[in-house]
């Protein structure tokens, strides 16, 4: 018990010394502090946040969610149908079974307008694509799709932590290959 306490205290002393040493070093170098926002920023931040809370809890937000609930299954059904159709075309080229090909065969405006109307579609869409189901397309196909559509940055906005990590792993693998 005493030994543990001594070790603990020793670590804290070393840490304190090293932190002070670093602070001194930075002061000596005249390292600048990041600039603080003006005082008016804080009051304004509360106003803006309250407005966003109002929006998030208003009927407007609820109606969008309701529209999304109706639209998402529709879009998924259309894409699944197209994907399935392509997959089961007799004597069709096997490479044409990727989602990339299917989506590219659709008019770009159609996809864009659907995505613009219901942003949540993309989130659900990526979730479905990453689901552990043998019939869904793979990660590299979804990357292909978003590259083809020029939506890479949008994709990142809607991806979860787990999906971003999967994407990074996938890209790292591709880079090695």
């Amino acid at each position: 018990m005493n030994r543990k306490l001594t070790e603990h205290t020793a670590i804290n002393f070393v840490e304190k010394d090293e932190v002070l040493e670093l602070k001194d070093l930075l002061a000596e170098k005249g390292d600048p502090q990041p600039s603080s926002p003006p005082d008016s920023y804080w009051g304004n931040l509360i106003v803006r946040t309250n407005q966003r809370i109002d929006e998030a809890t208003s009927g407007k937000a609820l109606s969008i969610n309701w529209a999304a609930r109706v639209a998402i299954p529709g879009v998924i059904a259309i894409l699944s149908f197209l994907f399935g159709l392509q997959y089961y075309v007799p004597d069709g080229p096997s490479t044409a079974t990727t989602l990339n090909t299917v989506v590219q065969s659709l008019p770009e405006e159609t996809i864009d307008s659907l995505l613009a109307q219901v942003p949540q579609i993309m989130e659900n869409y990526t979730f479905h694509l990453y689901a552990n189901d043998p019939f869904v397309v793979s990660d590299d196909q979804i990357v292909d799709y978003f590259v083809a559509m020029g939506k890479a940055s949008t994709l990142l906005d809607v991806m979860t932590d787990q999906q971003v990590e999967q994407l990074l792993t996938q890209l790292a693998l591709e880079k090695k290959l």
Partner: protein
Amino acid sequence: MEPKADLELVEEVRNGNRQAYTELMRRYQQRVYWVSRRIVGTHEDADDIVQETFIKAFLGLGDFRGDASFFTWIYRIAVNLSLNALRKKQALNYLRQSDVIARFLPSRDDPAEELNSKEMGSLLQRAIKELPEKQKAVFIMRYYDEMSYEEISQVLKTSVGGLKANFFHALRKVQEYVKRES
């Protein structure tokens, strides 16, 4: 008059008093802002994250059980959102390296990018930027906010021993970077 305790305000918010939530935001907005700013590096990103943090906290107040303090809870949300934003940035930078994708993304000559890189100009900020995600978070909480390991442990839900190791490694790396680059 004694200021109301956080938990008292939380209870009032749950009973529909929005003014009580404004008071909670006023109390913690600066700490939430600065931890986010130090993790993500830019004012614009930190500004987004502070708003997101308070919105998520408001909407999730029903899940707040009071096991940890309200501040720890909200601080955890801010750290998680900041790390998430950082990962997205990392992914975006990774994608930028790809020739195929580069043409769909803003170039490095983008004025916003230039401004951000200037904001990352401090030696310490650049050193922190080089740290792995977890070391970065622990370093910021310990070095700037001077939080105890027990508090950090509540935020990151990690053991105190692991946090000490993380901070020690981070500190060494920052020291080496500062000595090397200055």
